[in-house]
């Protein structure tokens, strides 16, 4: 027999009470402000206050058209997608690999030390990371260029050279987050039934075969889940890092939607235009997320809903 909603709420009131702060938080800070999205379709001056959001002139898709007609539209889209794609291709498997390697290391002390050392950078703020990178990579006595010079190679101005800038972004991003990413995979590995490994051994499977047939399938659910989530965030190419490191000579390869929105909104005061660009980005993100979820389900994996 199904009960009515009020009586269900009454029966589990303690649970509802516990969940209430979370729901209220999301309502107030994530859903109610959503109405501000309408400024993307209006001409709002940033200094006129909240009322202006409702009363200002409706301009329809003008800002969207302006964005797609902009000379730099394709550059920005390409950079955003490429940088995120590189992050996904190189950055996503990295913690999986590290987690498997750590799992195979039989010396517990070694395992612990590596784990701790590898996830320390996660706690360093991006500003510090940018400072470190600038110091390491400078051509004026930076350690990397000094090493290059000692090996008889030419010095490279990594942060000012369009050929290297994206690699610097991706590699430093992996360095910062790889250890932190392993935590969830290690937990998944720990949850794999030890009997499976024994059975595999009895069947004559070596280390590699055990990884391939036991460890990886055991992790596959969590891998798919995180992959879907990261595809949803594919257009978040890492505003902070790029903003701290880029300069005009690498704009061509580094300017992404987020840095563009920052300049349009906060520097040029075109709030409506910036909102339109960001809404455009969110739309694509939703499409990507739905697509990834659909594909995951199609290939017999669990989706996120």
């Amino acid at each position, binding site marked *: 027999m199904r009960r009515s909603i009020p009586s269900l709420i009454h029966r589990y009131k303690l649970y509802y009470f516990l969940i209430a702060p979370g729901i209220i938080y999301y309502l107030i800070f994530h859903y109610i402000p959503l109405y501000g999205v309408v400024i993307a379709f209006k001409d709002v001056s940033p200094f*006129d206050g909240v009322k202006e959001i409702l009363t200002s002139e409706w301009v329809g898709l003008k800002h969207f058209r302006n964005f797609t007609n*902009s000379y730099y539209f394709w550059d920005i889209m390409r950079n955003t997608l490429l940088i995120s794609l590189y992050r996904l291709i190189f950055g996503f498997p990295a913690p999986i690999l590290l987690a498997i390697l750590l799992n195979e290391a039989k010396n517990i002390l070694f395992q612990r030390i590596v784990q701790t050392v590898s996830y320390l950078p996660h706690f360093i703020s991006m500003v510090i990371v940018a400072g470190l990178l600038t110091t390491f990579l400078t051509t004026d006595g930076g350690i990397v260029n000094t090493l290059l010079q000692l090996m008889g190679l030419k010095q490279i*101005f990594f*942060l*000012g050279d369009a050929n290297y800038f994206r690699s610097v972004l991706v590699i430093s991003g992996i360095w910062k987050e790889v250890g932190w990413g392993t935590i969830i995979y290690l937990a998944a590995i720990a949850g794999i039934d030890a009997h499976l490994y024994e059975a595999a051994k009895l069947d004559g499977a070596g280390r590699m075969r055990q990884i391939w047939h036991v460890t990886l399938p055991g992790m596959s659910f969590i891998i798919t889940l995180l992959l879907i989530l990261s595809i949803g965030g594919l257009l978040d190419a890492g505003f902070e890092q790029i903003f701290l490191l880029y300069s*005009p000579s690498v*704009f061509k390869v580094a300017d992404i939607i987020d840095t563009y929105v920052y300049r349009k909104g*906060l520097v040029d005061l075109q709030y409506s235009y910036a909102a339109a660009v960001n809404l455009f980005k969110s739309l694509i993100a939703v499409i990507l997320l739905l697509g990834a979820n659909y594909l995951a389900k199609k290939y017999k994996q669990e989706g996120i809903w």
Partner: protein
Amino acid sequence: MSGKRIVAGIVSLIMFAAVIGCSTSEKSGNASTAGNQDTGQGESAATDSKKNEQVYIYANAGNLALASTLSKKEDLEMVHKEILDRSGFEVEANIPPKGQEAEKLNLLLASNEPIDIFVGSIGAFRDNGAIQPLNDLLDKYGSHIRELWPKEWASAWDAVTDKEGKIWAIPQMPQLAEKTIFLRSDWLAKLNLTMPKTIEEYETVLKALKEKDPAGAGQTIPIVTNMTGLNLALSAGFMDVGYGPWMDQDGKVKPPEVNPGYKDFIAKMAEWYQKGYIYKETFTLNTERTRELIKQNRVGSAIIHYSVVTNIQSDLQQKTPEALYEVAGELKGPKGNITTMSGLSPYGWMLNKKSKNPEAAIKFIDWIHSDIENYLLIMYGIKDKHWKYTDEANHVFERLNQDYAGEYLTASTFAYTVQFAPSDPASKPEYDFLGKYSGDTSRVKNPATADVDYLYDQQEISDKLPHIEDINRMIEEEVVKFIMGARPMSDYDKFVQELYSAGLDKWIEVMTEQYNKVKAAMK
């Protein structure tokens, strides 16, 4: 069982208390920083308003961006109290983060934070309705403000006044040349060279700096600069006009980047970069880092905003007493004067449209402009504590310490700058430069449209040129690439074509139209 319940009860109580505690401490944390103004407005406006009026300033006069540290807490308190005692105004200063002054200001204004006075270019603020016209306020309370500004700089008032005669700001500066070429004269002497007068001589100096390495250990940097520095302190030497939009023979206004002389200039800079005269990472340096290099006794010549050099020289001299930067005042390019005089800019001190008490704000500015000692108080601190006169009649003084950094400086004005002179080594070079070079019109060129472009209709321009930023960005990005050698100079004409495909045609059309309109109206 009951024991467990008691433990659970205590734990939940502690958590509850922690939640409450955290949330209140967060509240008070806000109050002591940004939210400060809220409580201030609520309480003190109610209690103090009979005696003292509250004024909120945004400290973006520029002095703090160049200060090496902020004030000591006690000294800040002392100056705050002194201002209150002498003027009756309770001044609250909002200190911007270095390098992000403009963004923070935009955020504060958009989020209704109490800010009364700030400085900037009036265009976007006026068009977005962020500021208020000052005519009535100036008539009622601003007699000293008007008196202080010298008659010969009257055009600066025109630049902040619109067609209807509304005054939107109080001018801060007349036309000045603020970017220049400095050279280490002690190194020149060491290398048996003299101050260069031609580009060829300058190149000889650069070559000597590079090869003879006066700093030692390969540390010498012949040039540090940035794009603005190069454009305003040197490029005019290769063109017939100052850096800025120019009038082509076809009667159209065009950006300087398509001026044939400018191409020669960029070619020369690319050559210098390639030869290692220009510091390799110069275009990614921020002001802080540039000053660091100067302080480390490494920079032979700096093509940059004057204060980046003048305000750090005394720090450099602490370790290297003989170090001295001098302006290459007689240096000329193939086409004459190298320095561009800034055009009339609609720049000045503005009042927030939402200011709760604009009368108080303008009265406070009037108080500052009524007596130079008031100005010295907000800029340098308390007399005989932070500074003392060495020649009172001429307002020559020396700073006794740097304990007060100038957080309360507002309504800064060049009209005062020329009336006093700090004699201490930390401030003297700056005032020497301002007195000797910044206003000297005999050694500069003006941009071709400088006398009219401050009257352009900015709203119309942004309506007709929604993609004007694309062009600006392309210029910013590509010109640097040519200098750094990331693009060969043979590509320069291609770059000009790219400008046209990004909408330069339209840019030229709109700017020419604006120029002609204003010219016609002037007649």
